[in-house]
């Protein structure tokens, strides 16, 4: 695999992730086709046959949107919290760390996107369903506070099953903690883009995921507060097709724009350029006319 990893920006990172299939071929769960794993990776982690979106390992995600080599990771190895002394939790965490190669369900740090410095958080659905416990909340909050101090815009790629049950009520407090930090970031006049990927549910939706100045979503992602199965059991009805998918949220006014993976970097770049700090456009000097390079995006 070593020499192949030179092929794409994010291949090296992706192949370093144990959860990406090691085999040369894999079976697409959507269309059943046997597909080449390398094609999946170079194709933004989508099925080359049916274009289904596969979940993206966090480092690969960063490589897909950040300028090459610009990622600096923050706050690694925070001390483990086990507030309930929940049987087997510490062992489970240790196991997840070995399997995924990351220390918790979120990576945070700084990147550059088309040269613009940005604080970033990327959640990993592969790590205990991307659930938010104290360390996830703490890493995100530290990232947000640092972004506020250093006057950086923030991008968070959300993907989470919700609160970390094994940490009980402490997990719930992470919602208030992250929301409070984002309020200060916003009051400082700074920009936050939340990107909702499959799945973004529970306590994460009810906190930082829905608080972006701009909220983007990947196509077809499951996004909701209560999970569809819980709702069906509660109301005793079958839910309609497409309920709680990105397109449903767009129609109901909760998502600014659905963005395909291959357009994500360009989209983030334009949005951040437009909101890159306090009054960028009023301060900017009037430059010579720029030839129109990109089209009008109405969707």
């Amino acid at each position, binding site marked *: 695999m070593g020499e192949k990893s030179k092929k794409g920006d994010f291949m090296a990172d992706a192949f370093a992730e144990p959860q990406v299939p090691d085999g040369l071929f894999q079976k697409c769960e959507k269309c059943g086709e046997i597909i080449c794993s390398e094609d999946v990776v170079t194709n933004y982690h989508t099925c080359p046959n049916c274009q289904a979106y596969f979940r993206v390992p966090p480092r690969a995600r960063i490589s897909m949107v950040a300028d090459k080599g610009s990622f600096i990771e923050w706050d690694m190895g925070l001390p483990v919290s086990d507030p309930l002394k929940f049987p087997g939790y510490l062992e489970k965490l240790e196991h997840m760390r070995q399997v995924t190669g990351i220390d918790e369900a979120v990576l945070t740090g700084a990147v550059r996107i088309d040269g613009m410095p940005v604080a970033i958080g990327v959640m990993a659905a592969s790590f205990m369903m991307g659930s938010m416990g104290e360390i996830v909340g703490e890493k995100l909050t530290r990232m947000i506070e640092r972004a506020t101090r250093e006057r950086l815009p923030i991008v968070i790629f959300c993907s989470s099953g919700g609160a970390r049950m094994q940490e009980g009520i402490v997990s719930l407090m992470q919602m208030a903690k992250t929301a409070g930090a984002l309020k200060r970031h916003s009051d400082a006049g700074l920009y936050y883009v939340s990107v909702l990927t499959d799945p973004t549910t529970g306590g994460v939706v009810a906190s930082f995921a829905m608080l972006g100045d701009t909220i983007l979503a990947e196509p077809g992602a499951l996004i909701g507060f209560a999970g569809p199965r819980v709702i069906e059991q509660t109301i005793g009805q079958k839910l309609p097709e497409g309920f709680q998918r990105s397109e449903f949220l767009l129609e109901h*006014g909760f998502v600014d724009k659905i963005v395909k993976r291959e357009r994500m970097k360009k989209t983030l770049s334009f949005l951040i350029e*437009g909101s890159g700090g306090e*009054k960028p456009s009023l301060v900017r000097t009037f430059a*010579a006319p720029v030839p129109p390079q*990109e089209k009008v995006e*109405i969707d």
Partner: protein
Amino acid sequence: MEELTAWERVKRARSSERPTSIDYISGIFDRFMELHGDRVCRDDGAIVGGIARIEGIMVTVIGEQKGRTLKQNQKRNFGMPYPDGYRKALRLMKQAEKFGRPIICFVDTPGAFCGIEAEERGQGEAIARNLYEMSALKVPVLSIFIGEGGSGGALALAVANEVWMLENATYSILSPEGFASILWKDGKRANEAAGVMKITAEDLKELHIVERVFGESLPQKEEEPDGFAADGWGTMLENGALTADGDDTKQEDTEDEEEEPNVLNRDNMELVAGQLREGILEFLRVYHRKTPTQIVQERYERFRRF
């Protein structure tokens, strides 16, 4: 400017051939990215909004959007926004204020949508909230009337530092039909009502409701023999004059459908879009030098004086 009666201008403003907000956005800005949703209930297709770039300057653009076909109008609701549309617009405007982006609005609506759901979700509250919040936005706001300016539904995007109109756009307290039916109990006297309501750009400039009017006259076409063209126009004007007394509105409507070569449409709008682009750049240059306090105060006084 062309010599037309107020009612003829109303018909131009309503014409389905007329360029819409999206046409102007495409024709004026170097790049535009649409953003959706009110974060409460719905994304209203009757209002488009997003971030645009013009000569390196980032602005927020919001426009009322009509459809051309029946299918488009299922999405656009004939340019009649629900409260959700006004709430989306306000959300985008507040964001523009946060990030210091000037706001450009395109107004083109028969009016705010009238219906049960619109009332349930607070049509009045949504419009009121826009007037309230727009009065204090710390960034410059420019509203350009490109077609119909129907009442509160138009004003909700027009509490601006400057309001501009195209030559054949209108702006009124209600439709001429509504005006005639309320004051004269006869909706068919719309034509006459249009004449007294002061709804044309020229009239509104005199009343200081608008700052600038942009002409829609197009360069003369060369291919048509002079005599023929003049005849064609003469006949049309006469027909217009014949129906000007207004009892046969149906005939006028069918006449509308014949495409008049000199009427502003998507294919010949380049000149008008270019003039608007120049105007917008000039507006940005002028307001770039003003402080937020000055911008708010001037907008306040602009409406205070009425």
